[in-house]
């Protein structure tokens, strides 16, 4: 296939996910001729809304919004481009005895609810909430900063190390210890220190394992919890919300901002190769044969996909390739998107219960969650999966016809490859869906009959459609050995690569996954720095 020249740009971004679009926006706003290329006919990556069943809009992958950095929202003026996030303020775990534990973002309401189960737990909740909030406050400023290389002697790295050391030291002795503990503990053990009621622990623990190849008792999962608590909706810390029109609303707003800034998007053909010669990138060749030239290429794809599939290995040092191969990207999540003929009944919930508008679960205990993880380790999907189930049409009626509903069910754990050797694109996919549906039906007797259409997305499907290796939603495990200056490869945590002009801007880089847009903003800042842009024009750039 001979490539035909199809244009010349200052910057080409590979992949129109939220991070790719974010990076492109920052660069286009500085006057750089910027192009985003996307393999699918639609844009959005894993922040996407699609109509797969007439009249229903699914948030096919990511489904709720909280982590999106407010700096990015402000810099790109996303609300003006149509972004609207509507908070939901409660959730619940249904118990096997026909009851429920409700979660309210209102502190006092939650305290009252907890005391229905245990007075002691209610007292300890105060301490728990404070501990988690303190950790959120500590980590937040680090999200929009480039991680230093602790082995480097560059003044920039030393200064950043000093900054981190000072920030850490400023916590005071007690909190320094608590921070180390929090970062290295399991969510199970962390919760065991505060609560005695199993269902309360199970409710809180879900956030520690979503998207990971870890169990509730694996050290490091307490930190993952933070990844779900450090967000905000309109300044309300820890709040979660629905994006009007589904998660595609985020990327649509970004695309609009990009177009306004003069950037361009070409969807429908993916990148075949990122060109590199003599250690420098020169552009990309698309699958359709188009050659696009640019001295700067930013990849929104994960690190393994970028360097193992799309870059000539001869251009990469062996050590780097080895480290990339070693980077752990383990698929562990599945997703069901369901069109419902009406609102399913939940007999446990009192009439008009507000928590039905939020996230619903049915995991009873930490042991049930840990066993679900063991199933995954053995190459099976969980017999008793953890799910995070929401009906966004309660709050956002745009997603289904009047009176009808859309349900999104995130499922943990499902392995990328089944130990049985069965492929995912056969009966296994339906069997997984049936496991989940049966579990939901235990708490909603009419649920099964209301199903009009469902989309089942196994890790294999997510990989094939979105391009996330193994279908891992974070573009790589969020474990210590892959965080901060270790993400994705020690020595390359600054969004750069051994190839001059080639950058990473996806969740494979610091600070990792979730629809945060921080890696995209950070990568753009590093690109601008290399291109000699001096003055900081936006808050994300000023943050560094």
């Amino acid at each position, binding site marked *: 296939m001979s490539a035909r020249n199809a244009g010349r740009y200052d910057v080409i971004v590979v992949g129109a996910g939220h991070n790719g679009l974010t990076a492109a926006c920052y660069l286009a706003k500085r006057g750089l001729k910027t192009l985003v290329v996307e393999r699918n006919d639609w844009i959005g990556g894993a922040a996407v809304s699609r109509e797969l069943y007439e009249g229903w809009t699914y948030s096919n992958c990511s489904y709720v919004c909280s982590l999106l950095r407010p700096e990015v929202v402000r810099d790109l003026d996303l609300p003006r481009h149509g972004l609207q996030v509507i908070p939901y303020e409660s959730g619940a775990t249904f118990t096997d005895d026909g009851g429920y534990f409700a979660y309210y973002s209102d502190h006092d309401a939650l305290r009252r609810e907890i005391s229905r189960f245990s007075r002691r737990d209610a007292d300890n909740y105060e301490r728990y909430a404070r501990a988690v909030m303190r950790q959120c406050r500590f980590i937040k400023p680090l999200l929009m900063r480039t991680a230093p290389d*602790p*082995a480097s002697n560059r003044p920039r790295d030393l200064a950043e190390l000093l900054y981190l050391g000072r920030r850490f030291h400023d916590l005071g002795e*007690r909190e320094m210890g608590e921070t180390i*503990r929090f970062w290295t503990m399991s969510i199970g053990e962390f919760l065991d220190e505060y609560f005695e009621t199993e269902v309360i622990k199970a409710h809180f623990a879900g956030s520690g394992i979503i998207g990971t190849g*870890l169990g509730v008792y*694996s*050290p490091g999962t307490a930190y993952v919890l933070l990844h779900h608590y450090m967000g905000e909706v309109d300044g309300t810390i820890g709040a979660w919300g629905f994006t009007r029109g589904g998660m595609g609303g985020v990327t649509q707003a970004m695309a609009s901002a990009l177009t306004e800034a003069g950037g361009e998007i070409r969807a429908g053909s993916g990148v075949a190769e990122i060109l590199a010669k003599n250690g420098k990138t020169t552009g990309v060749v698309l699958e359709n044969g188009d050659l696009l030239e640019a001295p700067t290429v930013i990849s929104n794809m994960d690190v393994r996909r970028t360097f193992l599939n799309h870059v000539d290995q001869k251009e990469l040092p062996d050590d780097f390739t080895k480290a990339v191969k070693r980077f752990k990207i383990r698929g562990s999540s599945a997703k069901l998107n369901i069109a419902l003929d009406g609102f399913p009944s939940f007999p446990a919930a009192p009439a008009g219960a507000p928590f039905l508008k939020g996230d619903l679960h049915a995991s009873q205990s930490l*042991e049930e969650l840990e066993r679900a993880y063991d199933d995954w380790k053995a190459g099976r999907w969980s017999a008793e999966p953890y799910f995070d189930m929401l009906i966004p049409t309660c709050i956002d009626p745009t997603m289904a016809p009047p009176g009808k509903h859309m349900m999104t069910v995130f499922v943990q754990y499902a392995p990328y490859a089944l130990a049985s050797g069965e492929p995912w694109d056969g009966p296994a996919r339906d069997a997984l869906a049936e496991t989940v549906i049966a579990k939901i039906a235990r708490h909603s007797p009419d649920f099964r009959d209301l199903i009009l259409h469902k989309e089942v997305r196994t890790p294999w499907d997510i990989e094939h459609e979105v391009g996330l290796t193994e279908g891992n939603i974070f573009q790589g495990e969020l*474990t210590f050995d892959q965080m901060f200056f270790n993400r994705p490869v020690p020595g390359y945590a600054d969004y750069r690569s051994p190839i001059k002009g080639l950058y990473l801007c996806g969740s494979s880089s610091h600070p990792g996954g979730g629809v945060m847009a921080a890696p995209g903003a950070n990568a753009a800042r590093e690109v601008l720095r290399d291109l000699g842009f001096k003055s900081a024009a936006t808050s994300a750039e000023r943050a560094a």
Partner: protein
Amino acid sequence: MTRYDAIVIGAGHNGLAAAGLLARGGRTVLVVEKNDVLGGAAAGYEIAPGFRAPRFAHLLHAWHPQVERQLDLAAHGLAFARRDLATLSLADDGNHTIIERGEARLAAGNSLPDAAAFAALHRRLQRFAGVLAGKLLQVPPRLESPDWRDLAGLAKLGLDLRRLGAADAREFLRVLLSNAHDVVLDEIADGPLAGALALDAVMGGHSGPRSPGSALTLLYRLAQGGGRHLPKGGMAAFVGALAEAAQSRGAEIRRNAAVEAVLVENDRVIGIRLADGEAMKAPLVLSSLDAQTTLRLTGVEHFDAEAVRRIRHVRCKGVTAKVNLALSALPRFDGIGEDLLGGRLLLTPSVQALETAFDATKYGELPACPALEVLIPSLADPSLVDGSGHVMSIVVQYAPYHLKGGWNDAARSRLAATVLDLLERHAPGLRDLIVAQDVLTPLDIERETGASGGHWHHGELSVDQMLTLRPVNGLARYALPVGGLYLCGAAAHPGGDIIGAAGHNAARLAMKDWALLEERVA
């Protein structure tokens, strides 16, 4: 009432080391031990008349050379029957792997595909462990308003790290908090060799090879070089040398003297009371018991609420059991010569199998295939058995403290049967040689040594319970909030395994504090 300068609770290796060092510093010392036998988890005993076996721990691999020198243990009878034992990791197909001084080869002599990769990995881990080695004999640094010693320690750590070179320093920081499963399997294929390395990472702990942080315990184990040594005369002789070293300097040791309470007056420790009501006075009390037990003996009213809560939450779920056998003759292992049998035999077929065994433990179940570390110390040291028989000492990783249904006789027999079945796969006829056998569950370990949960390390050796967080955040510098009361055992930094560093560090600190106090009084 009898008065001493210092009383040490518990005559385990750390208690005895602390007593020896206190006595060496000129203090009058009393050691009180609840058992008739000294040694705690390092004790030896007679399993059957004429058969002397280690009761719990059976090897020395981290014993700190500096503690040994200061106590001059060699002069008090410590000798080694064999140093740097080879490890033999058994394979079901008979293709056993020998690991010796960081090199691996197949017992059959043919070449091992992963030999070079293993050697490189081992060298790298050894190098990384070297960075940590210096921390063992140091009191964990104060993180806030550190003194010059703390700062120097931290600076040295930074310097050591940089001295590794950029590539290794980065790799160190990546591996440090990683898990054994990934660190090992990134380099070599899963099998008995990988399983052996992973077992070293999790031995004694409630953690599986996939648990993040397990790489750090592996590095910890390699910090003293990773060599494993067999004391001449068994663990009893090692403990004997420690006791002798303390007594020769005037320390007194009372056996069968269980402590009922640590006595406190005006927030200062004033002595102890024994179960029989007898009280002894001392301005310094060093407890080699775990933090929870020490708290209980002292009384929660002397600690602030936060300290009590933290200590009660120290994780110490014991998962390691012991099976000891007296054998009428040397068992025959298929395809293994007598020279290799004298080393350390491991039954840990793969990292995967180890993780599966751990999974059962999490739910209070006995795994079908626990990993075993088997020793026949009487091969290297015939003095352990009168006559022609042998003793076999088996560490069983994993057997949960909280076994579903409890540790009744049926459960014990099941554990013994599981272990013997696994061994008979390689040593058919082993059962016929058994003269006597002891099954020691984590519950027995708790009853006999006093370690809460029967945990070998007096608390899980995980990152959130290490260094400045051991045993708990805020109490990591040996001294407890009650004046004159110290932790000197595995509950304190650097934790479990027979190192002696906790005893050493606590004794040094206690003497320093005492000197300050005397100055003030004067």
